[in-house]
């Protein structure tokens, strides 16, 4: 039984969780840093606790302060959002030690899934197809070279403890493999405190297609279809959509079945995402599992009519899902644009500051998830996501047209503030994207 939820996050996702609590009649408490004292989530929640100064390490990542905030307010559950502590098994365990329900999978599972090497091994054990690659971390540059020769170039080196698109290097030239292995390992040590590196075949022209799964604590679970997130810059997603433009019912059934076999096989609980690469030849290969809510979850909500955060809270409270795969329907098409405070004309340098004007779009089938308003000062301490614009339509062209309308209405002005709205408009107008042909190499080839 959950009555009060501590929201251990900020920005738009904190607002999202507070709204889900409101819908379910749960009390919400937002943990905030000094930089976020006057933000929307704090304003909307029932209570708020200051957990530290602006730097994330001393606030949003400060486990004792977050736990203290939950105990101080007599919260009984903690929602970690995405990023920050959402995939930290240590934090999940500490929550359990203090009698707090962590909204997510069990800590032991989080630990296993947090290592991409372990996740791949687990998935293989459950018959999920992997890209040709090494199952164990590579111990030496020579081992990397040998593995790459076996698999065939081009290959991609990946940090086992990496995530969110970081810690990856593509190697096309065999003479570079040993040096790139050393670089990737060194960077992984610094960035993730873990230098384990593995290797996979690199698929050119593949699509990033991920399957949303939702599992309860009673062995029940469904998948909620797929999202195509191929439009990425340096492995950071810019646009996501559902369904995938080249998906067929038959392929979706197969990918969904693989995803559920993996998820239920490992005893997954809550909302999670199975990432796959969909090759041009129609074969799909498991990449990794994100054992948390994702930024782009609204796209799935739009086509399935299922409130994912609400389901997370229900499942965490011990409720059975109450529906099965046959009850899940996907209708129409949905698209999401991530509006970041970055300047595409200056190599996407953060362009933060005070928002002198902030007028989000509205109207038919337009959804905006944001924490910003006029006067918001975008702080330099965190990521640069300002808002997510999501549109739905009966088919893809209608969805894209509505997104074009919405982006045109969106007014964001501020001294030194630049955003990716213009870039999104450019992509929407581009014939390759309009035809649904964008793969993971798309953005790097688009002339900005």
């Amino acid at each position, binding site marked *: 039984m959950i009555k009060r939820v501590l929201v251990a996050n900020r920005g738009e996702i904190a607002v999202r969780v507070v709204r889900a609590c409101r819908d379910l009649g749960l009390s919400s408490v937002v943990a905030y840093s000094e930089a976020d004292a006057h933000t929307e989530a704090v304003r909307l929640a029932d209570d708020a606790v200051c957990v530290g100064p602006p730097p994330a390490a001393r606030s949003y990542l400060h486990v004792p302060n977050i736990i*203290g905030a939950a105990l101080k307010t007599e919260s009984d559950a903690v929602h970690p959002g995405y990023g920050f502590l959402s995939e930290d098994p240590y934090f999940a365990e500490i929550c359990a030690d203090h009698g707090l329900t962590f909204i997510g999978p069990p800590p032991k599972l989080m630990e296993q899934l947090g290592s991409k090497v372990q996740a791949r091994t687990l998935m293989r054990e459950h018959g999920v197809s992997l890209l040709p690659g090494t199952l164990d971390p590579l111990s030496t540059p020579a081992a990397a070279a040998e593995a790459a020769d076996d698999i065939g170039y081009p290959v991609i080196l990946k940090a086992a403890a990496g995530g969110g698109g970081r810690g990856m290097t593509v190697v096309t030239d065999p003479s570079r493999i040993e040096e790139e292995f050393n670089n990737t390992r060194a960077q992984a040590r610094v960035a993730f405190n873990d230098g384990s590196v593995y290797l996979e075949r690199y698929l050119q022209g593949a699509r990033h297609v991920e399957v949303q799964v939702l599992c309860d604590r009673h062995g029940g679970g469904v998948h909620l279809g797929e999202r195509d997130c191929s439009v990425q810059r340096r492995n950071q997603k810019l646009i996501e959509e559902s369904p995938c433009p080249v998906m067929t019912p038959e392929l979706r059934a197969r990918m969904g079945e693989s995803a559920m076999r993996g998820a239920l096989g490992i005893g997954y609980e809550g909302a999670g995402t199975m990432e796959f690469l969909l090759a041009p030849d129609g074969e799909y290969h498991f990449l990794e599992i994100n054992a948390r809510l994702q930024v782009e979850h609204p796209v799935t909500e739009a086509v399935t009519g299922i409130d994912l955060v609400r389901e997370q809270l229900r499942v965490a409270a011990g409720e059975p899902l109450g529906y099965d795969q046959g009850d899940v329907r996907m209708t129409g098409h949905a698209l999401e644009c991530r509006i970041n405070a970055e300047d595409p004309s200056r190599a996407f340098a953060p362009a933060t500051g005070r928002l002198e004007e902030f007028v989000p779009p509205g109207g038919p089938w337009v959804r905006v998830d944001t924490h910003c308003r006029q006067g918001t000062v975008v702080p330099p301490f965190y990521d640069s996501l300002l808002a997510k614009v999501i549109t739905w339509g009966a088919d893809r062209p209608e969805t894209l047209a509505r997104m074009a309308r919405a982006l045109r209405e969106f007014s964001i002005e501020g001294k030194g503030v630049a955003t990716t709205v213009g870039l999104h408009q450019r992509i929407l107008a581009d014939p390759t994207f309009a035809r649904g042909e964008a793969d993971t190499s798309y953005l790097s080839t688009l002339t900005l």
Partner: protein
Amino acid sequence: MSGGDRPGTDHEHLVRLLCDQVRTLAAQLPPGLRQLSLRAGDCEVSVSVEPPAVAPAAALPAEQPAPSEPATSPHDEAETGDTTPVTAPLVGTFYRSSEPGADPFVEVGDLVEEGQVVAIIEAMKLMNRIESTARGRVVAILVEDKEMVEHGQPLLLLGPDTGEGDETDGGDGGR
């Protein structure tokens, strides 16, 4: 930083960087910031802050006993008149003494030195000694023993070190 080929853009960029630095510094410095100027090359950013108008705190002579309840809105009364707050650097449970039954570290009227232990905040079973950030006389203790506090919450107010009252050695021997 790029060279001076396009002075307009460089200045713009420089000013933006300075503004970011001002914001970062302002957030990290103690409350009561009045003016902050940063200069780089021939670019300068200067910020002046008017202190918010607040009702002056009731003057408490050192001989009077401590108020029996914490102030109703301690965050508003911090930094008024001549008082300086000692604030919680973390979230946890506030204790006035080093262990149950021991004397409190400080009482109202005590003179404390900068760095002197004035309280303990316990978080996840770790006892954190809270040191005074200034020298002064304890004017008010704003939190009850065993109350949970948040980061930045004022714990006690220090006034100027005039008047009579006890000088303490810091309860359990100070540092």
